[in-house]
């Protein structure tokens, strides 16, 4: 038990150490503390503040608190010769704005206001422009914004107006005033009439920003002209011809910006219109057009936004020679099937039609019942297989059609 008691006493003694207790002031001040503070100082300037006078208060510690929007600072001074003097340097006055000074000692407190104004603007100034590209349509414009700051980063809320120099791509230079309000200098920049880079220079007092670039791009095209190369092609359902526009320029003669979307509209009799998207490169939009499977005259237009071209005509002519192939029925008894095979099919130029060209087959029995089949050409020939199981005893007529050409044959099932 004695050991326990000793242990408890030791712990208690250790826990009762109160540490350092601050000394109490010699004299307690009461009432309002008088503050001598300049109303306005510039950022970075020295600031001298006196609190007093006091009677017989030498040695009393006065605490001074500076409350600002961005920070709170605390200083301490001792009353000497009836005054407590605070000589504050650049660190205390680097943030511009309204500050509240509170001095207190014991129960006594005094308050004063101080305005720290920003110093002269310094380079480099932040200059922004947006949007960074402006279409030359006579309406669109960009805005240049400058944020003047002093060397401590304080914004110049009511700085003097600055100057804006605009150098257009054609070398033309324009000067304008850049008014500054609420710490922001801003001005509109019209696009001008020539596409290219517009260089912007901004200056406020002695401060300047880095040169800023704005891109002037062409507005909507004045007119669109469409071409087809070649203007005539085989209607083989495969060949590609190129549709393109002439270089598109806006009202000022500038080429349409690269990547602008152009839609070609192709109207072919017998099918719904085709919309072919393309985009411009050097003012020209190109897109391939695949020939239809049957002869037709196509009408082609191109449009950008609301601007549409005049139509042009593209001619697609028959691709296969009429009556230019034969059809044969081959019986495969082991496979229990009949093959319908065409002879090699040639196009107008005497060449075999492309592999994969569709051929429509029709099988008609003696009662006139039809069976539709479709084959594709390989090496110029098209083949379809008919299962014997699907056929009844009787005579059959088989035909194959491609474009305007056709062939037929007959066979009997016994």
């Amino acid at each position: 038990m004695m050991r326990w008691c000793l242990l408890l006493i030791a712990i208690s003694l250790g826990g009762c150490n109160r540490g350092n207790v601050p000394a109490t002031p010699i004299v307690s001040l009461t009432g309002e503390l008088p503050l001598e503070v300049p109303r306005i100082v510039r950022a970075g300037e020295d600031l001298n503040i006196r609190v007093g006078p006091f009677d017989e208060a030498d040695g009393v510690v006065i605490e001074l608190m500076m409350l600002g929007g961005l920070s709170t600072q605390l200083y301490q001074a001792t009353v000497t010769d009836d005054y407590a003097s605070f000589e504050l340097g650049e660190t205390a006055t680097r943030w511009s704005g309204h500050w509240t000074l509170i001095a207190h000692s014991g129960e006594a407190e005094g308050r004063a206001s101080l305005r720290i104004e920003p110093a002269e603007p310094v380079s480099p100034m932040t200059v922004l422009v947006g949007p960074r590209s402006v279409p030359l349509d006579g309406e669109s414009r960009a805005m240049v914004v400058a944020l003047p700051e002093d060397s401590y980063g304080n914004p110049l809320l009511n700085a003097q107006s600055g100057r804006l120099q605009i150098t257009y791509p054609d070398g033309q230079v324009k000067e304008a005033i850049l008014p500054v309000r609420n710490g922001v200098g801003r001005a509109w920049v019209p696009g001008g009439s020539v596409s290219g880079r517009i260089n912007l220079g901004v200056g406020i007092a002695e401060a300047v920003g880095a040169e800023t670039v704005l891109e002037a791009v062409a507005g909507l095209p004045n007119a669109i002209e469409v071409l087809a190369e070649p203007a005539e092609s085989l209607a083989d359902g495969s060949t590609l011809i190129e549709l393109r526009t002439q270089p598109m320029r806006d009202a000022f003669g500038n080429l349409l910006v690269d990547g602008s979307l152009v839609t070609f509209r192709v109207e072919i009799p017998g099918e719904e219109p085709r919309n072919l998207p393309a985009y411009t490169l050097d003012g020209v939009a190109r897109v391939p057009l695949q020939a239809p499977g049957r002869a037709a005259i196509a009408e082609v237009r191109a449009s950008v936004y609301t601007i549409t071209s005049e139509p042009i005509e593209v001619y697609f002519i028959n691709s296969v020679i009429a009556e230019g192939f034969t059809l044969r029925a081959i019986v495969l008894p082991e496979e229990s099937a009949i093959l319908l095979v065409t002879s090699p099919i040639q196009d107008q130029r005497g060449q075999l039609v492309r592999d994969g060209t569709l051929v429509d087959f029709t099988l008609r029995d003696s009662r006139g019942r039809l069976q539709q089949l479709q084959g594709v050409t390989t090496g110029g020939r098209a083949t379809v297989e008919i299962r014997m199981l699907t056929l009844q005893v009787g005579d059959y007529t088989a035909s194959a059609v491609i474009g305007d050409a056709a062939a037929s044959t007959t066979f009997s099932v016994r």
Partner: protein
Amino acid sequence: MKRRLNPYVLLALALALAYHGVLVYSTFRRTYDAYVHIFFGDHYARTWFDHWDYRWYTGFPLTSYPPGSQQSIGLLSKWVGLEGGFVLVQLFAVLMVTIGIYRFSKIWVSEEAAGYAALLTVFSSSITETIHVFGQLPTTFSLGFLLNALAFAHRWFKKGDPTMLLAAWALNAATTAGHHVTTLFGAVFFLGPVVVLDLVDKFRTPLPDEPPQHPGKVTRGNLRPLLMRRLRRIVPVGLRTGLYMAGLGFILVMVVLPYWLWSKDDPISQVPIPHSSRDSFLENTAAGLVFWLIPYGLPLVLLPYVVYKGLATRAWPMMLSFLLLFLLGTGGTTPIPKLLLRGSFDILTLDRFTFWATILMLPLLGEFVVSMRHGRLAKYIDEQFGRPTRYTVSFLLVVGYLIVSVFTANLTYFRRFQPAAIEVQPIVNFIEKDEHWRWRYMTLGFGDQVAWLSAQTTATSVDGNYHSARRLPELTTTPVERLEGAKFRGIPGIGSLQQFLAVPEKYNLKFIFSNDQFYDPLLYFSGWHRVQRLENGIMVWEREGIPPLPEVLPRKEIPLWQRFMWGIVPMGAIGLALIVLNLVFWSDYVQRLLRFLGIESLWRKLRQKAEGNFIQRLWNWLDGYMKRWSALPTNDDSPVTHWQVWLDWAARIPRPQPVSPSAKTVRSGLLAVLAIGVGVMVLNRYLAQASDPIKVIEAYYDDLDFRRFGEAYQRLDPENKPDYDQYLLELSINGGLLASYAKLDAVTAEILTIEPERIEAQVNTIWITAVEEYATSRLQTLVKRNGRWYIEPDSVDVRRAPDVFIRRQEVEWLAQGRRRISTGPTDYADILDRPLIQVISSRLVQVGDRYHVVGELINQSADPADVTVTGYLFDEQGNILSWYNAVRGTVHKVFPYERVPFRIDFEGVAGSVLSDAATAGEFAADAFSPLDLDSPIASFQVIAQGVVTARDLFRDVAIQDVNISLGIDGQQHIIGNLINNGTVEATIPQVLVTFYDETGQVMWVDDEFVDVAIRPQLMQPFDVQVTPPDSIEVLLTNKGDRPLMEAGERTPLLPDIGYNSMQLNVRYFVGAVGS
């Protein structure tokens, strides 16, 4: 006398260390849960006393899970790293379980059998599966403590030694620290049988001072003394049980008190997450394998012996507990578990019951080994089949037991439950780069490795891997465990994911790390784009215009004392338990310390004092009272009646007599023939499948789905199939939504025509993609060769592109981002422009019960724009009722001067409707959650914002051969061909059809994906079903809109269509970019 250590236990511990020690280091990365516990361990390693982690689910409390095992990992990670910490704690748990099984078995069976039980534990398939497949550390960690605690509790019940009580409590506290559920259910299924056993033992054992005489027959006169006699025997055990249970309850509450307070104060009502352990194992055979067959393993064939032995010996309380667990572990195979568990059925994971059942089997399996070695079984087999047969069977059982264990341990090799290991460092580097941690991220296709990634960074994710802590309603109202594996959870899963992808700004979600291209279409058509492929193969997706996270994130505070308690008590309990377990080494020193502090003498005095206190006197009085009442009447001469008739019946059963050596040979031969016969039957069944054409078709599609191209090729007609290289080539060029981004969900085949050697069948397939569910139907021909059916290969696409060599001029853009290499914030001048986007027209319409805003916008700036279109719905007071972004109904990357349609499909919170939850597991990617509005819609607004972009700007697919026709479904269809005029494959094209009324206002926007990729200069057909105009109700039109009537791209439509005109747009996903 010094106690002799059981050699089998020492051998078991050595084997456990060697076997699991070697395996666990390579298997834990592929388990389900290991990384989750490592993540928790990482949290404790970083901030031990902080109860909150911001990294998952926008923040969650750690007090929602007992911390014992995870804090142990965190503690050890200081020296051996997180992974090393996990391995060490898991090994410790295995050793504890092995010792625990030995101690627990000794309660029920002989010392020798208990030793064998410990040996069997090492290679138990259930233990192996829990460690090497599931990675459930808390389960093994807490089970080890529980089993050891039971041995001490048993001694307390039996002898009343208070040190045993304290030891049991200390071990129970450690059990609770590891996993409170183990304590809770352990009290029922493990402790319960021990209590019953001790009560029964005491009930049947006369007290030393009990009157010796016993009547032969119970009569009215001797009933009371007999009852009182037995009551007197069990009252001490009952009181000890009561005291122990009270302490156990106190421990259960106090050790994890912050957990209970959390579950009381912050209950998160969640939709239960489906778990395969609740399925019928006859229907879901894969679940049956993992959750039933593997845990029981080979001992399943010994089940009759185990049940018989259990019920016929003093182990019957344990056997009753086992049978109950066995029933509960069958999940949905029988209705009994649901009847017994009622509402809890949908919350509990029932495989835990099976696991506990396998643990309860082990003592009796130890008994089986004894019997096979030199017991009655050995004698019986020797007599009836001969000793060689016994040796053979024993050998086969041992080998089989080991094979099942090794197979189970390596199950994750044979059948992957997790994606291949992902090197997370490149992802961590990406997150740290350019302050990417200022946004949230999400992973897709990482499996449980998401937890490992999270453990490497402090960046936050909206997703997580610990479903109990989900807080966002989009998650808590759905049975989605993880968004990153949303495709495995049907519509609630994919629906939740779609919402996160559609309105990512709501969650500050900017980056997605994708390891599964299944989600690529969904990401792309939701407006996301690929940034880069990291060196580990992970694709980084990004969404533009997402605000960064606020500096201060919300968290739910708990009192400081709870945080300290959480950090100290559970680990303190584990530490105390370890001291108790090793008391044999410490006891001398502890006794000296107690002696030094005077506690020993104090304790002695207290005991002496207690012997004479009121309670003691009261007990003496009660005991004396019961003792007096136990005395039998002196005139009791009732005759002895033998009433256990079944013993007589059992004695009459003829015992088999030893047979001759030749008979033994014949019997052994028959046994071998039986085994071979079963094998032949199984083989025949397998071969029969190859001659069924329907099975051949199903197998072929299954092979294709799982990329088993070699097997698929073998099923093609050998006389007509191309060579293997050509076959692979033809497969490889068939890209697109179905071939590359889909999963086969179902395949059915119907035979249309039958010829002797040829069959034509219609094959219907259902494919799952992230954006749509596809049903396809096609004809497939099968031919018979040498008695087997083969599939006729598909005809080859012989079309040729018109040109051999293509020249294309292209405009390329580059968004530089930072033009100066710096780690500081991005310079003002480097921030990209916001292009001028004009909404040309917009309308609020209703189709069925769903609200949409449709309209058109145009990019009026000279730069391409990544556009986000947001629709807001307001009530009369101008309050926002709902807002949503356009997802698949618009083109997000817009060229200069391009006009595109938009359709905003408003949705409620995914899964918030009960019917959604009911469809968990059924996939319908295009299903939606209806909007739940508090008040009527008074107005709407559309805001389109864009950022200059240089990504995914493809416009080389054109539309041709368009026709409008009536489909076989009675609906109007727009059909045509898409031709690819570009130089890269259009992997997943999407056609958008904008319908206008006579005023040029957009009435509706339809969209359709094309399921096949389009190679350059080739075509693919498309078919868009037209939404009937009479199903569209126009609610509001924005007055200020200026439709552009003069635009020339529109196609006039016939009056019977119901719309005035239409315009077609195509956008497409290019799969190869950035890879």
